[in-house]
């Protein structure tokens, strides 16, 4: 609908909206996260929900103990290789539409444990992440900022057309490969459909990498 016409009508006392706007407004205003914390970032996440920062102001106060009732997974903390299959399985069990916030250096890349043997180098190797928050740990303000970013993203999603989100496209997967424990590493070590790095070798040995653009 033409926005000028909409303005004009509202000046005349007629409120118009679209199904899409209503639908997105409803969804973004009641994003229920999964009760789920992995490490120290979870403490900041808990602080965000408490009285001082009060995530409830944005409609996200109801942390659901079951993935079946949750809309948002906040991956708060270090994802060890031993924990990764469970995280992916929980994500698979969430109903669509579902969103993921990767909170903190560990969840987005492995953080200080990146070169270790038992830590996953970022949860986005296995599940699609909507918002990444850097920091170690990020302050509650950062989590709220990420949450508002997610709300903006939800608000901008269209229900039809080419740009429609993943869950409205029947061809796009809703579940992702759950890695298995291998003899030396997780099998597979990453979901190549989600995560692919191209090396551009330079003479001094420093490789520069670029993420493949992801459509999501």
């Amino acid at each position, binding site marked *: 609908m033409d926005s000028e016409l909409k303005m004009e009508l509202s000046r005349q006392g007629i409120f118009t909206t679209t199904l899409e706007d209503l639908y997105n407004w409803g969804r973004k205003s009641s994003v229920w996260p999964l009760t789920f914390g992995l490490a120290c970032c979870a403490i900041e996440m808990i602080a965000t929900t408490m009285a001082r920062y009060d995530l409830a102001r944005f409609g996200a106060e109801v942390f659901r103990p079951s993935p079946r009732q949750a809309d948002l997974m906040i991956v708060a903390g270090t994802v060890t290789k031993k924990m990764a299959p469970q995280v992916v399985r929980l994500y698979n069990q969430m109903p669509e539409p579902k969103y993921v916030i990767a909170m903190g250096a560990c969840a987005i890349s492995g953080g200080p444990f990146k*070169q270790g043997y038992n830590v996953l180098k970022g949860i986005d190797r296995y599940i699609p992440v909507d918002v990444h928050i850097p920091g170690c740990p990020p302050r509650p303000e950062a989590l709220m900022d990420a949450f508002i970013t997610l709300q903006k993203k939800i608000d901008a999603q269209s229900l039809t057309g080419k740009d429609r989100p993943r869950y409205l496209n029947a061809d796009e997967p809703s579940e992702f490969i759950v890695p298995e424990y291998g003899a030396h590493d997780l099998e597979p070590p990453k979901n190549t459909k989600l995560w692919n*790095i191209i090396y551009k070798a330079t003479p001094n040995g420093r*490789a520069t990498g670029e993420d493949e653009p992801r459509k999501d």
Partner: protein
Amino acid sequence: MNLEKIKSEIEAAVLGCRLQIIVNGSPSGQHSLLLDRKHAFEVAKFLRDDPELQLDYCSNATGVDWLDTETSQKVKVKQLVDGVEQEVEEVRKTRTPGYLEAVYHLYSMEKKHGPLVIRLRTENRIDQVTVPSLTPIWRSAEFQEREIFDLYGIIFEGHSDLRRILMWDGFEDHPMRKDYVEPNDYEYEPTPHDAVLEKSIQARRIEEQR
């Protein structure tokens, strides 16, 4: 606590045990006591129950991996050179097999003293990697011995529940061993340095070979 005195006390109490004081040359001077595998359990029992020592608390148990070492020595050997006997220098290499080590730090809550550091060594680091478990004596060693088993591969005989604790059950490696090779999953880092730079060069080579 005088380590020499403790050593002689143990030797008097546990017959046939072989002890060795490992000197720590650093400023802390925290010397430790190497126990032989055969008598380690008896010695540990003595350390806990002796009224003088009463080392009732095992605060820490950890592992150390000692790789095989190769030392070269120059030896003068008499040899016949052109019919004349001459002294010739020859380099002889001796290979000392490595071993794995479990280290325990003991304190006494009752007597307020400690730590006494004791060590247990395996025969080698390949197939004879068994040492007696001290968990029946100090319960606090249970999880830590499991961790040593997980990360170093020392098998503790007499441990009630020896499973991996950090890595999963199907995992085959022992990641804290010095010759552990991690799976090649290097990924881009903006400022690689030291070991990470090595890895990035390796990753580049692999990428070029494709």
